[in-house]
């Protein structure tokens, strides 16, 4: 095989108290799409940040085209030809689209920035990525998906030899993802080496040639995608036996709904958000909302929690008109809601795990009623134990936990309030495979053992198919299909989304 484009050898990185990377090797060839896989905290991001000069490394060598490089800042890495698109779009939304692409390397005329040239070239660049927008508008005029494309345009315009895509698809829907993949393949043909990090197995298998797996900061191995079955990949990532993983994938039997209806919506609408949704959710039922990003999944869930007003149709809870005007109304009706964006709307980073867990209960009890400390401790310990939350102790700050564990704390917060309906909006986004499965199991378990009604929303179809007893399929802010029993399959959902009425 030809000389490798990038060779990282024996990379070490130590953070105070933690060995984040230990003796890791990574090799990337030109024209290769290489996935970096591992559970959260395995060291993927750290490896990328060492490569891009965000963190200095504590040992090892990095060679680019055989020459040793030592980037100390993102700028130096860029100058070496290493471009990165980070998971959270790292652009300045107050600047124009064009400026975001060119800032730091603006073409000049008479010593001053040549705006015409910048706008013209940006327009061309984005057209190549089949994005046709007004580049002179500031970036905050556009949705996240477009911003992501702009970030990619910026990255590929720098004469990049290596392009790092860190979770680029987590905020994209399927169409946008397909468009992104087309671009990535074009870049691959130009001989660029691409490092692709994603939690979506489907996407890894669709687009990558090679996989390097990390676990606990150590290298597990590098494999050809075609020769590595998915189950084996997962087994290697979590470091478990293959048979265990098979068990994990097979969901225990789904929960059987009770007769009693908990919440019922009859052609509800919310102005500008939801057009027409009808559904019946029974006790002990796990119901999924399937559909593309922006189809109204989240909005429907928010309406059930009183975050969006009901402007048409009717919504009944236990047979009575709901009249939810405020989340507190919903909480009093024993509804709990874990929002989509846990960092923004869920956790309170500077409070401890215990304090985060008792929040919902405190809100329900009223601001001024004290929950005795002993009771708080008891509750916190109960849920840490029950949900297997990995913490050093209950007084640890929640911001120092991994994504999966933060999610569990938020779920614990709501369970502490003894809800009768639990809404989980994307509870598994951005967390590792093991924890994903645990959360799915937990949703089913709650419905079964406590007769709780559960709404489960996820972008990953197989997850919903495994978990839900009933699937509401949405498109363009409307319910287009309702699947139950054996009809629940990825194919059925896709057909409904695609609009196959017949």
């Amino acid at each position, binding site marked *: 095989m030809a000389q490798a484009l990038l060779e990282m050898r024996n990379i070490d990185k130590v953070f105070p108290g933690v060995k984040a990377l230990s003796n890791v090797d990574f090799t990337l060839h030109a024209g290769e799409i290489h996935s970096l896989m591992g559970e959260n905290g395995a060291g993927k991001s750290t490896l990328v940040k060492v490569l891009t000069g*965000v963190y200095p490394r504590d040992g090892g060598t990095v060679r680019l085209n055989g020459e040793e490089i030592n980037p100390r*800042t*993102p*700028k130096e*890495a*860029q100058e070496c030809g290493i471009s*990165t698109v*980070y998971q959270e779009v*790292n*652009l*300045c*939304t*107050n*600047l124009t689209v064009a*400026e975001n692409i060119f*800032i*730091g390397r*603006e073409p000049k005329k008479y010593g*001053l*920035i040549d*705006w015409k040239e910048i706008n013209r070239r940006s327009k061309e660049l984005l057209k190549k990525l089949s994005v046709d927008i007004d580049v002179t508008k*500031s970036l*905050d*005029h*556009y*949705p996240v*998906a*477009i911003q992501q494309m702009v970030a990619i345009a*910026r990255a590929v315009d720098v004469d990049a030899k290596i392009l790092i895509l860190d979770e680029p698809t987590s905020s994209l829907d399927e*169409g946008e993802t397909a468009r992104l993949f087309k671009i990535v393949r074009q870049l691959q043909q130009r001989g660029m080496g691409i490092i692709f990090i994603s939690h979506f197995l489907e996407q890894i298998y669709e687009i990558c040639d090679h996989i390097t797996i990390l676990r606990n900061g150590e290298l597990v191995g590098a494999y050809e995608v075609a020769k590595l079955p998915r189950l084996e990949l997962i087994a290697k990532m979590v470091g478990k036996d293959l048979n265990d993983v098979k068990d994990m994938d097979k969901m225990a039997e789904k929960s059987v709904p009770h007769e009693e209806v908990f919440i019922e919506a009859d052609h509800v609408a919310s102005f500008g958000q939801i057009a027409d949704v009808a559904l019946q959710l029974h006790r002990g039922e796990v119901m999924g909302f399937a559909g593309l990003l*922006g189809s109204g999944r989240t909005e429907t869930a928010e309406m059930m929690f009183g975050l969006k007003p009901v402007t048409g149709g009717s919504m009944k809870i236990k047979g009575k008109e709901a009249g939810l005007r405020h989340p507190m109304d919903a909480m009093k009706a024993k509804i709990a809601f874990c929002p989509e964006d846990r960092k923004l709307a869920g956790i309170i980073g500077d409070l401890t795990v215990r304090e985060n867990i008792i929040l919902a209960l405190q809100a329900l009890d009223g601001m001024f009623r004290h929950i005795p400390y002993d009771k708080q401790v008891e509750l916190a310990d109960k849920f840490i134990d029950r949900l297997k939350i990995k913490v050093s102790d209950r007084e640890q700050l929640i911001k120092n936990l991994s994504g999966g564990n933060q999610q569990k704390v938020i779920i614990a917060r709501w369970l502490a309030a003894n809800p009768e309906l639990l809404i989980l909006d994307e509870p598994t986004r951005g967390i590792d495979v093991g924890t994903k499965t645990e959360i799915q199991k937990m949703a089913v378990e709650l419905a079964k053992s406590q007769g709780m009604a559960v709404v489960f929303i996820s972008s990953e179809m197989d997850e919903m198919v495994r978990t839900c007893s009933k699937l509401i399929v949405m498109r*363009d802010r409307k319910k287009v299909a309702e699947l139950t029993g054996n009809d629940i399959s990825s194919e059925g959902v896709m057909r409904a989304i695609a609009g196959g009425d017949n």
Partner: protein
Amino acid sequence: MNKNLANIIASKYFSFFVTVILFVALYGIGIAMYNGFMKPQVFFNLFVDNAALLIVTVGITFCLLIGGIDLSVGAVLALVCMVLAWLLTNTGIPVFLAVLIVLIMGTVFGAVQGYIITKFDLQPFIITLAGMFFCRGLTAVISQETITITNPTFVALADTRIPVGSGFISVGVVIALLTILVAAIVLGFTKFGRTIYAIGGNESSAALMGLPVFRTKVCVYTISGFCSSLGGIAYALMMLTGYNLHGLGMEMDAIASSVIGGTLLTGGVGFIPGALFGVLIQGVILTFINFQGTLSAWWTKIVIGGLLCVFIIMQAFITEQKSKLTAKSSMDEANSGKSDS
């Protein structure tokens, strides 16, 4: 709402347009009410009286653009006046040397503040507040009494009237206009200027895009220090004195002017011509009060207070419009995607 109107409101120049329209309207009302407003010199006096404030506002706008602040500008201005007066009175050095010394002094002071803020990642509010006390104190230590500048060269410079049409402007105005011009070019058309906007928009993104964040931040406070001392010279040209209470509260006037001109306190939005009109609006209100004759000059503060409030609310409204537009364009996107398939 009408789509075009929504787009105009979300445009980055909307606050600027509002400011300009407000200025023109105020001036128009002035002309309608008082004949005196028609005289060109009344217009030129807006600049003559506010030359120092204009220069200081330019400096503070740089700070606000990176999401920082500089509270020391008024005190630095006072210190510069005092040192200049002291040098010209007690030493025989030529005027240009004295001017050079105070310029360097203010600039270095700004650079030190900037370095401390950036190096230790401190709140600019506190550091420049400390700087304000330091300079104000130092000014009083040099002299508690007013020192009058009698140096003939400097006095001649102060009395120079540069004719424009049927009116005239002062040397200070020329300095102010040059400062505004240079600042506008730097902010609009140089890498340094655009990096300032990027840092104001999102500092960590700017760093990840490979922009020189540290250097730029220090430079911004240095520029603010330079503008304060340049403003101090313009102020000395107008007052011909060094006095401990010169420029008291000027930092707040400058911040108010900048905000009325469309600068966001959160950083990343704003531009120099807006700041110019922000100052002019304050000037017009003061002119009104002068023509009216019986009102106290403090009414200017009351009106400015009201205006500030209105502008801050307007900015919040603009931000809201923008997020609505974003939501709308994602919806359009989704719809057009559907028609493709």
